[in-house]
């Protein structure tokens, strides 16, 4: 999926970013980028997805949050932010209302913290759960007393 031309121009002129699939954006500009894309007609939120990357020699322990938005019918843009574990990324709920549940789910499962989220509670797992199951270091068969 190629990035449309107007988005490439927008990225280069306003943000000084290279286009790509996905676009990598810094944490302090992600809300601005989301707003700019929404103004450019990308009003459809496809998904918010996070993935966990354990610490390597070059990088610290971190997660990536990828947002994918769409301008109907076909244009699609994905942009991602890198969030070191223990730090947070600003939420996109003010821009896309749908980020509410999506970011909650990713917080619950992957553990990415979205700063300023109105209701950052667990959504899939019980409230008293410990750990975030989709992190790479989380054992799949973690016991949870008393039901398993």
């Amino acid at each position, binding site marked *: 999926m190629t990035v449309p031309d107007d988005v490439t121009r927008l990225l280069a002129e306003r943000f000084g970013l290279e286009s790509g699939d996905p676009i990598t954006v810094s944490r302090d500009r992600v809300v601005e980028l989301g707003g700019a894309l929404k103004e450019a007609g990308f009003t459809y939120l496809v998904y918010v997805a996070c993935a966990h990357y354990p610490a390597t020699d070059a990088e610290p322990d971190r997660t990536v949050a990828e947002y994918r938005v769409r301008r109907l019918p076909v244009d699609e843009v994905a942009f991602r932010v890198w969030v070191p574990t223990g730090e947070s990324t600003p939420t996109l709920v003010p821009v896309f209302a749908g980020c509410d549940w999506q970011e909650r789910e990713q917080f619950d499962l992957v553990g990415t913290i979205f700063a300023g989220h109105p209701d950052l509670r667990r959504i899939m*797992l*019980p409230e008293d759960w410990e750990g975030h199951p989709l992190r790479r270091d989380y*054992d799949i068969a973690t016991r949870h*007393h008393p*039901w*398993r």
Partner: protein
Amino acid sequence: MAVDESGQAFTHPLYNVMAQLPGVSLGLTTADQLLTWGASNSLFVFPMATSCCGIEFMAAACGRFDLDQMGTIARGTPRQCDVMVIAGTITVKMAPRVKKLWDQMPEPKWAIAMGSCAISGDFYRDIYSVVPGVDTFMPVDVYVPGCPPNPDQLFAGMRRLQEKIRMRRNGEWTEPELRPETFGFKSPNLPRIGDPRREASLDEAQLDAVINLDPGGGLRRPDPKGSL
């Protein structure tokens, strides 16, 4: 491993007197058989349908199969049901609710674990959030294996349950249900209900979780010293 139940035999004084009167025992036996016939032929089902097996349960209730043929209808409230059909995966979040609904059903009650998720967790059994089989927290009478079992397999399970009810009521010894173990089932090794290795603390913790299900929801632990 027959259990010695002689110490728990039912000895009501009036019963003892009545049992000696001529003809009464015959009448009581007949009445007993009648009641057994009633209990085994009118099994109202509480569909604890969580996932795929719930769809097959619905299919079993519908035209081609029709559970109503054997007098089985599904009710939405556990109070009016005799059989709980656990059809689908039970997760850690759902398990206290299942246990609570099971406790809300009036005796005599039975449970059917329909589908491999309810029996052992199937391939989700290693997953952090899935209970590896409902028999880790509640008794199960009949296992209906399959993923999902066809509706006719559910019918076979219901027939098995009817047979079991009749045999139990008539005082015949029924073999304990064989739990269909999947191959190489190693972990998690959670003791089942009735397993002598099961710790009392596990029961206590499960009871606690059920009672403190929804704080502020009007549920409270009964006061052991208080009156009813």
